[in-house]
C-alpha cells in the first residue's frame, strides 16, 4: 500500500508541476550570459610554468590576488595526513625577505581588506584583497613565499605551527558536535590508499610525526610555479600587471613535474556499510554517502542536478509525510579524483534508525523507478537553473571571483572553466540526470553513519560498531 501511495504522490506531483510550467522563465541562453560574465581578460604562462589569469574590473580601486596550488589533502604522503593543511599555515610564517610575523603586518599597513587561505582535498588557496596601489606588495609577498620559503624554516616555527594546527583539530573535530561523523564516513567510503581516504586536517599523531626534512621535501615537490595559478582580479592594467608579475616571479625555477592525481572510478561495494557512532549530542543524525566520478567525467554534472531533486523528494517523504526527521540535506562535492554525494538527516528524538534508513532507501529507489516522471524536463531545468544562477552569483565580489577562477583552475586545469561548466549545465537533459542517479547512487550501496545521542560519549562521537 505504501509503495503505491508514494508512487502516486510522485506521479501526481510531476503532473502538477508540469502544469505550472507555463509562463515561467526559461533557462537563459548561456552564450549571451557568458558574454556578460566578467571572465578573464588576459591569460599567460610564464617560462617557469606559472599560469597567470587577469581580469580587469575598475569599479573600486582594489585588487584581489589569489594563488592556487594544485596540492591538497589528497596529496598528503603516506603516514603524514594533514600535511597539505599544515603547510598552508607555514606559508604565513615568513620567508627569506619577510621576517616571521611580518607577512600580516605588512599587509595591514598597506590597507589589506581580506587575507586568508584554505585547503581542500584537491588544492591549497591563498588570497589577499588590497588597494590596487599596493599590488606590488602582494606580488612581493607571494613570490617570496613561493621562491624563498625554505630559507626561513626552522624547528621553532614547525613546533609552533603544529601546535596551532592541533588546536584547530581540537576545535573543528575533537570538540565539535558530530565532529567525527564526516571523517568516519569518508574513511569508509574511500579505501585505504585512495587519496580521499584520509582527512584534510590530519590526525594529531601524524602531525606530530612531521619533521623539518619532511616539510622541505613537501615544499620542493609541490610548491613550484609550474604547479600554481596566479589570479588577479580588479583595478589593474593587464599589460602593466603582467610586466610586474614577470619582475617578481620569472626567477623562481620550475620543479620537476609533480605527481598527477588520477581521476579514479568510484570504489565498488557489494552491500551497505553501516557504522554506529555514539556522541554527546542532543539529536540523532544519519549520514549516507556515495562516491561518484571525478569532475568533468560523463555523468558527473548530472549528479549536481540530482542532489537538489533527491533532497526535495526525500525531505517531502521522510520529514514532512512520515515525520521521522527534522530535516534532510543533500549535497554534492565534485573533486579531481572523485566526487562525494551525501544525504544528511537529523532525526526526531527516539526515531527508529532502522526504519528511517529503510524509508530513505525506499524513497530513493522509488525516485529511481519513477525517475523519468519526477525528473522531467521542467524539474531538471529548474534544478540546473539554480546551479547555473549559483555560479553567476558566485562572481560577485573580487575575492569570490578570483577564488572561483582559482578553484576551476585546480579542478579542471582551466581557470576560466566556469563558462564551460555553464554550457555543460545547459546541455544536460533529464536522461543524463536520471542515468547518473541510477548508475552512481541507486546501484551502489552507500556508507551509512548513524550518530546516536549518548551522554557518556565524546561530543565528536566514538565508533561503537562497524
Amino acid at each position, binding site marked *: 500500500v505504501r509503495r503505491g501511495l508514494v508512487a502516486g504522490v510522485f506521479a501526481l506531483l510531476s503532473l502538477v508541476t508540469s502544469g505550472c510550467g507555463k509562463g515561467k522563465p526559461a533557462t537563459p541562453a548561456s552564450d549571451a550570459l557568458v558574454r556578460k560574465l566578467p571572465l578573464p581578460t588576459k591569460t599567460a604562462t610564464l617560462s617557469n610554468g606559472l599560469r597567470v589569469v587577469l581580469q580587469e574590473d575598475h569599479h573600486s580601486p582594489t585588487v584581489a590576488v589569489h594563488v592556487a596550488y594544485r596540492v591538497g589533502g589528497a596529496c598528503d604522503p603516506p603516514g603524514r595526513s594533514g600535511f597539505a593543511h599544515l603547510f598552508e599555515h607555514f606559508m604565513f610564517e615568513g620567508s627569506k625577505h619577510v621576517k616571521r610575523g611580518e607577512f600580516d603586518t605588512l599587509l595591514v599597513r598597506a590597507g589589506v581588506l581580506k587575507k586568508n587561505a584554505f585547503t581542500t582535498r584537491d588544492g591549497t588557496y591563498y588570497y589577499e584583497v588590497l588597494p590596487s596601489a599596493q599590488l606590488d606588495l602582494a606580488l612581493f609577498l607571494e613570490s617570496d613565499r613561493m621562491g624563498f620559503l625554505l630559507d626561513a624554516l626552522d624547528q621553532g616555527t614547525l613546533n609552533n605551527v603544529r601546535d596551532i594546527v592541533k588546536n584547530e583539530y581540537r576545535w573543528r573535530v575533537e570538540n565539535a558536535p558530530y565532529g567525527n561523523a564526516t571523517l568516519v564516513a569518508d574513511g569508509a567510503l574511500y579505501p585505504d590508499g585512495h587519496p580521499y581516504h584520509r582527512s584534510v586536517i590530519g590526525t594529531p599523531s601524524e602531525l606530530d610525526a612531521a619533521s623539518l626534512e619532511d616539510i622541505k621535501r613537501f615544499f620542493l615537490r609541490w610548491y613550484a610555479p609550474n604547479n600554481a595559478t596566479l589570479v588577479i582580479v580588479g583595478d589593474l592594467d593587464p599589460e602593466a600587471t603582467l610586466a610586474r608579475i614577470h619582475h617578481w616571479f620569472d626567477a623562481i625555477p620550475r620543479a620537476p613535474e609533480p605527481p598527477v592525481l588520477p581521476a579514479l572510478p568510484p570504489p565498488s561495494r557489494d552491500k551497505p556499510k553501516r557504522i554506529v557512532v555514539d556522541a554527546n549530542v542532543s539529536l540523532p543524525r544519519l549520514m549516507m554517502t556515495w562516491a561518484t566520478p571525478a569532475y568533468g567525467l560523463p555523468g558527473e554534472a548530472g549528479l549536481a542536478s540530482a542532489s537538489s531533486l533527491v533532497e526535495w523528494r526525500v525531505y517531502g517523504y521522510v520529514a514532512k509525510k512520515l515525520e521521522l526527521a527534522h530535516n534532510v540535506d543533500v549535497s554534492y562535492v565534485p573533486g579531481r579524483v572523485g566526487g562525494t554525494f551525501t544525504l544528511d538527516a537529523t532525526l526526531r528524538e527516539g526515531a527508529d534508525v532502522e526504519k528511517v534508513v529503510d524509508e530513505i532507501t525506499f524513497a530513493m529507489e522509488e525516485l529511481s523507478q519513477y525517475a523519468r516522471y519526477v525528473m522531467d524536463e521542467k524539474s531538471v531545468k529548474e534544478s540546473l537553473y539554480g546551479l547555473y544562477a549559483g555560479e553567476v552569483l*558566485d562572481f560577485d565580489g573580487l575575492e569570490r571571483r578570483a577564488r572561483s577562477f582559482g578553484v576551476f583552475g585546480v579542478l579542471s586545469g582551466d581557470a576560466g572553466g566556469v563558462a564551460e561548466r555553464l554550457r555543460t549545465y545547459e546541455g544536460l537533459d533529464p536522461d543524463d540526470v536520471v542515468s547518473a542517479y541510477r548508475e552512481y547512487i541507486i546501484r551502489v550501496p552507500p556508507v551509512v553513519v548513524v550518530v546516536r545521542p549518548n551522554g557518556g560519549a565524546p*561530543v565528536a562521537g566514538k565508533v561503537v560498531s562497524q
Partner: protein
Amino acid sequence: VRFVALLAIAMAACGRSAARAPVVPPLDGPVAARTTPDAEFRATPPIAGGLKAFTPPKVEERKLKNGVRVLFVERHDVPIVALRVVSDRGADQADPGIAEFWERAALRSSSEHSMHEVLEAWNDLGAYFRPHVTRDSSQFEVRVMSRLLGATVKLLGELTTRPAFGPKQVNLIRERMRVAVADKWDDAEGQLALAIHEHLFPETHLYRSPFAPPDSIEKVQPEILEAYQKFAFTSEHVTITAAGDTKIDELLAALEPAFGSLAGPKIGPQAPPAAPPDAPLDPRVIAIHREGTQATIGAVWLGPTRAIPDLAALSTAAQELHAVLSTRLRVQLGITYDVDFTSQVGRARLPMYVSSAVDIEHTGEAASEIMKALERLNKELVEEKFLAEDRAAVADFAELFDSVHGTAATLAHLAVYALPLDYYTRRADAIAKVTGEDLRKAFATYFPVDRVKLFVVGDLGKVVPQLEKVGLGKVAHRKMFTLTKK
C-alpha cells in the same frame, strides 16, 4: 546543494586496514633541490606611500509614492542585482524567540500562493533569498540575475505585503528550529553564550537567552508570525536598498507596483530593553562543565550602545585587544587556533566579550593572559606603530562595498540606524584621528577590567584547579545547559 560546497574542507578518517599502493609516493623518494636566485629589489618590501582616502560609491536616494525610502548604487561589473527590504524593527520588538522563528518562516508563502508554488517561483528565478533578523532590524535579502529583476521584485513585493504562514508550514519550521536550538546547546560557544546571558540578565529580561528559548519554539502560531511581519514592515519603517546591474528608473518602475501597497500607521520607535543592573562581581570566574580537550574562555562585560560619542575609538580598541591576544595566545604560546571578539553595538546594551577555545591543559595560563592584557590596556598607551595598524585594519571600508550584495547590505546598515549617506567617509576621518590617549580612555570606559568576569566552558576536573591556581578570584561552577535527558 550548490556547487560552491566544493570549497568545504573535506575530511576522511585515518585508515588502519591493509593498504593498496598509495597514489602519492612517500616523501623519502628523490626530490630535486632548487634555489631561487636572490635579487637586490627583494630586500625592501614595496609598500606604496600613503593609503588612498576611502571613496564610497555614489548612492542614489528616492522615495516610492507611499513614502518607502529607496537607496541604490548602480554598478555593472556582474550581471546581477542585490536587494534588501529593511525594517528598523527587530527581535527587540517582540517576545523572545518570535523574530528568530519568523526569520526561518518568512518569504515562503503569501495569501495568493502556497509554499509549494512560492518555492517553485524562487527556483524558476534561480534567486538567492534569505530573511535576516537582528535585535534592531528585520530584513529580506535577495540576489538575482539582472535580467530577472522585474519578476523577482514582483514576487518579493507579494511576500512582503501579503505574507501567509500556514499551520503546516509553521510546524515544518518548528522542526528545523528544534535542530537549530539543539546545535546551539551542544556547542561550546553556545554554552558560553547561554552562561553569559544567564549571568548578566535577570530572569524576566528579554535578553536572558541569547538564542530562541526552547519553550518559545513550541508556542509560535501562524498568526503571531503574520502579526510580527505586519508590525515590522510598514511604509514608515521600511527602506529598500539595492545595488547592481540596473538603472534607478528601472528599479523604481519595478518597486512601485510591488511595494506601493505597503502602508501602516506610524508608530514611534519603541525603546530598547533597559540595561540590566550590574551583575555581582563575586564570583569572578564561572566554569561550566563540558568534557573535552579544549576549554572555551570568555572575558565578558556589558558593552555600550551605539549612541556613544567615541565609537571610532571603541572600534580601534577592539581591534587592538584582538591583535594583542591573537599574537599572545596563538602566535607566541600556540595554545589556541583563534581568538574572537563579540560585540553587538546597537540600540541596547549587550554583552561584549573576547573568547578563545584553548588547549585545556593551558586554561589557567590563557585566562591569566587575557586578564593581564585587559589590565595593561586599561592603563598604558598603545605604541604608535600598533595604533597605526589598528586604524588601518578598522578603516577597511572599501571591503563593505566590494561586492554587489555587500553594497546592498551596507546601505541597509545605514538605513537601520538612520545614518547619513556619507557615514563611512566621516567614520574613516574619525578613525584616522584616534590617538593613543583616546584608545586608553576607550579601554578604561568600555572595556573596564574591574567589571570583567570570566566564563570557562570545559572539563571542571581540569579547568577549576588551574583557574584557582592563577588567582583571578573566586571560581564558581555549574552544570552544562541541557535540552534533553541523554
